[in-house]
């Protein structure tokens, strides 16, 4: 009996010892970036190239051996700008500990995910919702938040108005999607515009699937709009300009696009209609993007596509990929590659202040108090069928803090 017990104790000790050896020598498991993207639907024009950018950048890093041998796998899911699809996809992977960060393109999905994950330290990449800057948590925006970009545009408008020698207040209107994204820029942006002396006209908001914008445009014309800030994801801006040109409004009104359009594609479809449109952007556009060495390399060697099929939205995804790799690198340095958890990656995101994105966008501004990915934007103008820069990087004002957040 005694011999029997001793035998069992020896076996148990060997098992425990074996487990210890096994764990200490086991290779670190790959980690996953889950991209709840929209390969189809209203924002696919932006989401698809953006997702390609992140996927290709992660592949590029993995091909070079990963982060200290740790590979970051890309898991892309098409959510079609549909909150239910996105949440369902997230819930299927929620317990998967390999998922250390999530990407979201849709602002409405972001709002829902915020409620779902507010107690978790899971990094979520989102486009530019200012609410996440107002209440810093686990959501990180790609660039400056929408209201800050709108505020920078108001500054540009006031300068332009003065340069034109116009008197009185410029009349500015927002023409955008009738959803959480479409209104976001005004939460703080409205207060900033009023403070700077611009006259904000009632916004014209339309559903995402709208094909014609004549009614909204004729109303803005009647209201005497001087500047119209157009939201939506291209080809929305392109379609708005197509309709505005057909109604003869582009000669009276200066149209300005928010971040998400037009790309080289939109310009190639309606070059005449888009002529003169100003675009505010936190990522490189036009020839600047086409000529960027990293984008060029990734697009042609990882994506294996010719440059004439390149979309500038690709750079957004590459920028987000650089952030993720930067954070994982920091995590590995701090805790070792076997202890890369969601919480640690989240902690690393808060330390990314100043990360260089190779000129694709401004330097990263994530910090313990800041969730906006950058604080600079650039203004471009469609000229001669091309999108050319008209300013250098300019600092975005802080419009978020001007809004009374609940």
């Amino acid at each position: 009996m005694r011999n029997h017990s001793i035998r069992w104790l020896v076996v148990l000790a060997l098992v425990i010892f074996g487990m210890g050896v096994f764990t200490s020598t086991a290779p670190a498991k790959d980690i996953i970036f889950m991209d709840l993207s929209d390969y189809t639907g209203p924002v696919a024009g932006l989401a698809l190239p953006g997702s390609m950018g992140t996927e290709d950048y992660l592949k590029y890093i993995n091909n070079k051996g990963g982060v200290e041998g740790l590979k970051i796998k890309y898991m892309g899911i098409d959510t079609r700008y549909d909150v239910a699809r996105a949440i369902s996809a997230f819930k299927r992977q929620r317990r998967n500990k390999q998922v250390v960060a999530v990407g979201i393109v849709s602002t409405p999905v972001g709002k829902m995910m915020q409620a779902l994950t507010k107690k978790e330290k899971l990094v979520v990449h989102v486009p530019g919702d200012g609410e996440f800057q107002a209440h810093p948590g686990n959501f990180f925006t790609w660039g400056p938040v929408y209201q800050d970009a709108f505020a920078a545009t108001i500054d540009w408008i006031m300068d332009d108005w003065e340069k034109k020698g116009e008197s009185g207040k410029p009349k500015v209107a927002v023409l955008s999607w009738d959803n959480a994204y479409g209104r976001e820029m005004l939460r703080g942006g409205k207060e900033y515009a009023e403070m700077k002396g611009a006259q904000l006209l009632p916004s014209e908001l339309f559903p995402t699937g709208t094909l014609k914008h004549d009614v909204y445009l004729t109303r803005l014309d009647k209201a005497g709009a001087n500047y119209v800030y157009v939201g939506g994801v291209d080809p929305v801006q392109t379609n708005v300009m197509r309709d505005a040109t057909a109604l003869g409004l582009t000669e009276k009104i200066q149209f300005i696009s928010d971040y998400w359009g037009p790309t080289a594609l939109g310009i190639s479809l309606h070059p005449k209609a888009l002529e003169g449109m100003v675009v505010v952007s936190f990522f490189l556009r036009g020839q600047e993007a086409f000529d960027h060495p990293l984008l060029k390399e990734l697009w042609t060697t990882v994506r294996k596509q010719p440059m004439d099929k390149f979309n500038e939205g690709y750079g957004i995804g590459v920028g987000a990929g650089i952030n993720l790799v930067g954070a994982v690198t920091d995590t590995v340095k701090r805790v070792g590659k076997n202890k890369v958890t969601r919480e640690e990656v989240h902690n690393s995101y808060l330390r990314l202040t100043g990360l260089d994105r190779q000129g694709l966008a401004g330097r990263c501004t994530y910090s313990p108090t800041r969730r906006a990915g950058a604080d600079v934007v650039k203004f471009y103008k469609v000229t001669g069928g091309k999108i050319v820069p008209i300013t250098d990087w300019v600092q975005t004002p802080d419009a978020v803090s001007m809004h009374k957040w609940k």
Partner: protein
Amino acid sequence: MTNFLQLLLLGLLEGGLYAMVAAAVVLVYKSTHVVSLAHGQLMAYGALAFWFALSVLKLPFILALVVALIFLAITGWFIERLAMRPLIGQPLFAAFLTTFAVFLMGDGIFQLILKGESNSFAKYLPGGMTSVIGVPLPTTQLVSFGVCLALFSGLAIFFRRTKFGLGMRATAEDHQLAQSTGITVRAIFSSIWILSAMVATIAGIALANVMDIYFPLPYVGIKGLIVALVGGLESLPGALLAGLILGILENISAGYLDPIVGGGVKEVAAYVLLLFILLVKPYGLLGLVRIERI
């Protein structure tokens, strides 16, 4: 006043587009009594085929149109042969659901082809602005409205003057009677799907000329169905009338009510009109009132 006139004329032109989409739905219903949702997709694929022939294959305009029409005629025949014919004699609801399935399947493929981008005929067809009685109107919409009028005239001649058209009308009246007069009802069914697919192609091209080939394009087909219901499912003149009414109603109501209610009126106008018409004229504006003898 100019603003009202502009909204009215823009609505009229937009209504012509809805009428064309509805025409395809009416054609199928006239002969088969099937309410089709699939035509939203046929319309979108028609526009896509035309764009492909025009800008990728670089064919001349007429040839590109012929290619698109042939491609969609084959597609229409294919749908009838594979999805609709096995349902002859089955409840009409099953056929309706089958067209819905075709719509969903077509939509998935359409979205995958587009990949979030859009395509346009802007480079190939006339654009810009034309002034009509002092009101600036998009040239593309004027052209598309002209196509609409030509299409309805052509269909009127086809159904009144050609043997085949008369055969289709006879089949619509009574399948058995038509069969007894020597009309091959199955051939008529196939032909009507081919014809309606070709009409949907023309509607799709006219629509895409104004709105581009963009992901919501097939969903205009849903509006076409509403127009067909409002006009009376068997009536082509009803489709034209209802389309024009809807276009005007949408633009005028959105133009004047949006600022009061905060927007979105254009999107609900069609459904309000449908509800109203179904309440006061359940068979539609020019639909056939069926009296059942007991």
